[in-house]
């Protein structure tokens, strides 16, 4: 599903965020991307959604080399990738419902289908009762779940999450992990970047560890590699 081939990324100014990174993530697989801040986790996720392009190497998504994709083709790639951001990137000038509705409007769904899907997505993250609220009125954990609802409403086959539990306490983080697990169970491919030790301890999920832009040998046994 996702495959990195000797990918390097250097930012203008000379900082080398990724060095010769190679790995593969199979369809339906879930993995954690770990490492200290500045290790290159965000950059790696950005290369998958082509928010950044690599200086060398190739990034394949669905067997397509996305690093050479024309910018006009990017929207169609991104519609198949649900992205969850640490800072949520919610729009505070509209309701919870309208935030989740945005990806469907972009794809041109009709009114009835949109309503159904938005409510289903809100239900999945436990925000069904809050659809008329403004996101500013939600707690940090609720905002993160709203961000997840927006990422999944379009039913993408790939979910990328950048530090989804970064600012949350353990209890909220646990809830969000549960939501991710449920997507994993229905066959989505997930790549979740985190440095939350608590989140990593009690799971058997594959880990991809980055250090100074390079992949480290796995720190834990890779027993969760095959999807359940």
């Amino acid at each position, binding site marked *: 599903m996702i495959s990195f081939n000797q990918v390097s990324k250097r930012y203008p100014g000379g900082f080398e965020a990724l060095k010769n990174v190679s790995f593969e993530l199979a369809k339906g697989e879930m993995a954690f991307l770990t490492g200290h801040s500045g290790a290159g986790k965000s950059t790696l996720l950005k290369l998958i959604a082509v928010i950044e392009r690599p200086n060398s190497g190739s990034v394949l998504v669905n067997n397509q080399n996305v690093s050479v994709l024309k910018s006009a083709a990017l929207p169609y790639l991104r519609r198949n990738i649900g992205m969850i951001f640490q800072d949520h990137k919610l*729009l505070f000038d509209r309701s919870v419902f309208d935030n989740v509705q945005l990806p469907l409007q972009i794809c*041109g769904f009709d009114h009835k289908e949109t309503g159904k899907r938005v409510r289903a997505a809100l239900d999945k993250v436990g925000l069904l009762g809050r659809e008329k609220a403004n996101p500013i009125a939600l707690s940090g954990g609720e905002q993160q779940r709203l961000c997840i609802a927006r990422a999944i409403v379009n039913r993408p086959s790939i979910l990328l999450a950048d530090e989804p539990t970064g600012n949350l306490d353990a209890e909220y983080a646990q809830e969000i992990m549960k939501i991710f697990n449920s997507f994993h169970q229905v066959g989505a491919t997930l790549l979740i970047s985190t440095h939350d030790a608590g989140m990593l301890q009690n799971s058997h999920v594959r880990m991809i560890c980055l250090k100074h832009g390079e992949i480290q040998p796995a720190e834990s046994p890779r027993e969760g590699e095959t999807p359940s």
Partner: protein
Amino acid sequence: MMSAISQHARLAQNALRRLFASPVSGLLNIIVIGIALSLPAGMYVLLQNAQGMLAQASSSPQISLFLTMDASADDIARLRKQLAQNPAIDKAVFISRADALKNLAQSNGLTDVIAGLESNPLPDAFVVSPKTTHAKALDDLRNELQKLPRVDLAQLDSAWVYKLEAMLEFTRIMILILASLLSLALIAITFNTIRLQIMTQRDEIQVAKLIGATNSFVRRPFLYFGAMQGILGGITAWLIIALSLYLLKQPIATLSRLYGSNFTLHPLSLGDSLTLLLFSLYLGLMGAWLSVGRHLSVIEPS
């Protein structure tokens, strides 16, 4: 898939909502556009009216040939024959000095004055209707007739019409220049409004691009906004013109009655109204298009 019509209706509705999100600046923009458009359009209406009046007056240019007082019946018969043979002349009507005096007495209420005259001071005359209405050809014909024997004076009655026509042509070009300049100003207004819109919606644009919005999806609301602002400005201009004409109607009626004319001010025709609205819509769209092309590509998610 969302039907095209409902999607467009939603976009138009959103554009309206955003236009009046800050009512004061939204209204001010529309009023500025309305005034800018109403100036050339209003002048155009007045010009149309003047041209209509002129068309009535100049439909039959005539040349009056006043003969010398000593012209005899033979001279007159010879002249009549010459005029009839001239290919440039449609018809020539003879008015004898006696008839002319009678007409004068009837039409102007000068009976008493004329009755007091010892002799008839008026000359015999021909009223010549030329075939052409072209100013240069009429002038040539006048010169030719002036040279005929026993012709004292050949006068082109409609000379003033051509002077006025030339003046109207001058005015028309002035209006055209004014309209072009104000159209540019209008495009600039929309350009700037859209630029501010794009700046304030930076976050929204970035998020939309992150979750797979195409450029045309991002562009569309701004184009709607520009078009909406343009057409509302056009409607404002129409209202300004309609109100002005309404206010001018009474004074002009009084004025034309005093001049013994039945001239009335015509309002904007349906076709002209539509042209005004479509043109304002087009200008708004144009400004938005230029602005979006310039400013939208800069905003990419990071």
